[in-house]
């Protein structure tokens, strides 16, 4: 089945079985290796990607469901203006994520900061509770996102001036 969608702002067409999971399409057909594959049950969260401005588990999405959608992975996020503030924020908070979860956690932080410039701790906890990786403690993650939000806000404020 030919499926057309937008990946990281580029129009893509793939010919895959309609039941093929999005995580497999991204990794095997489109070489987006930042998207990791693990539980395939929508539990671990490390396969998270942004689809139509919402964070979703790519392991729960069959190919036919993607038709016409806009997908963003870490590769796409790295090409945005917001990425530098995000990664600097994590760096300044000394929050080093592992290779398994870095893609999904950065995307979760990005989508959260797109919605709310200064998310509350409760909002941060809620938005990140769908990704389970033991590489860091959660408080470090929350601090990193708060630091990133301040950097991002400062960057946009400077731009407006």
């Amino acid at each position, binding site marked *: 089945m030919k499926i057309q969608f937008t990946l990281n702002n580029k129009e893509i067409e793939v010919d895959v079985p*309609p039941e093929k999971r999005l995580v497999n399409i991204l990794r095997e057909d489109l070489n987006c290796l930042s998207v990791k594959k693990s539980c395939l049950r929508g539990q671990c969260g490390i396969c998270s990607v942004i689809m139509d401005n*919402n964070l979703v*588990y790519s392991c729960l999405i069959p190919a036919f469901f993607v038709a016409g959608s806009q997908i963003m992975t870490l590769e796409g996020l790295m090409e945005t203006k917001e990425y530098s503030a995000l990664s600097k924020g994590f760096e300044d908070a000394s929050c080093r994520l592992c290779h398994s979860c870095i893609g999904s956690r950065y995307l979760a932080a990005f989508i959260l900061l797109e919605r709310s410039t200064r998310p509350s701790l409760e909002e941060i906890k809620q938005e990140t509770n769908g990704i389970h990786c033991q590489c860091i403690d959660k408080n470090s993650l929350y601090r990193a996102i708060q630091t990133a939000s301040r950097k991002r806000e400062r960057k946009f404020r400077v731009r407006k001036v």
Partner: protein
Amino acid sequence: MSEKYKSSNIYLPGNLPDLLSALKAHPEALIFNGGTALMAAQPQFIHLPVDVISISGIRELQRITRTERYMEVGCGVTISKILEVGRHILPKALYTALQLIGTPQIRNQATVIGNICTPGRIYNAYPVMLLLDVRAEIRRQGGSRWIPISRLYNPDGTLSISPGEFLSRIRVPYERWTSECYQILGSSALDGALIFCGLTRLQKEFINETRLIFLFQGQNLLRDKEIENFLNGKKVPLSGKDKKICLEYIQNSISSQEWPIDRFEKERVLLILRDYLSQLYPEE
């Protein structure tokens, strides 16, 4: 691990008339909404039915309509969308139930219709919707009908939606309740979880109406009309004697069920009910 694909016929209608035509041509087709439960249950190999109709591209089914008396939610509306729109207007118990479904990623993909329409398993939102007298529109080419959520399932657990039909939207009435409670005790994945929902309307210091329901391990519902009738007209706060009678009613109700409930589960039920009844106070 590799996945084996046994390709199904996938239909992607772009509008409602096309969907109804596709459904008429393939009445046994699976209507694919969010698909989270279906996909999560198949981590090894994905097996879809022969015919699948995906409604993700149909805008008419992704609408939320509000009137003075109710809110209508299309079957393509995600749970996160309902939470966003219904933050201040949905009944609190239903809002809580929806908030507790999965994670943000699940809520961004799953639909509330899928949550109440999965045979073999009762998920979070169904017990609350039963108490709220939510109605569902069942649609087919050439007509539609509205049924209460309580008639969505046959006594044998199968859906009462015939081939060629699909659940297109639900209608949630706005009713003011003085006390609303929704609790999940146990595993957040629902296996082994006990869910309780209680709604009470007070008039000054008397109970005007109360509705209570328990869901055991995603399989069995318990709603005792005797307790509800007994409580109607009672003065709050309830006396120790009234609470004791209610607990006896629920114990009798539990004993008369065909499915087994262990002692631990019974104690949890009594604890929740006692707590709920104890927190009923007159409106200020």
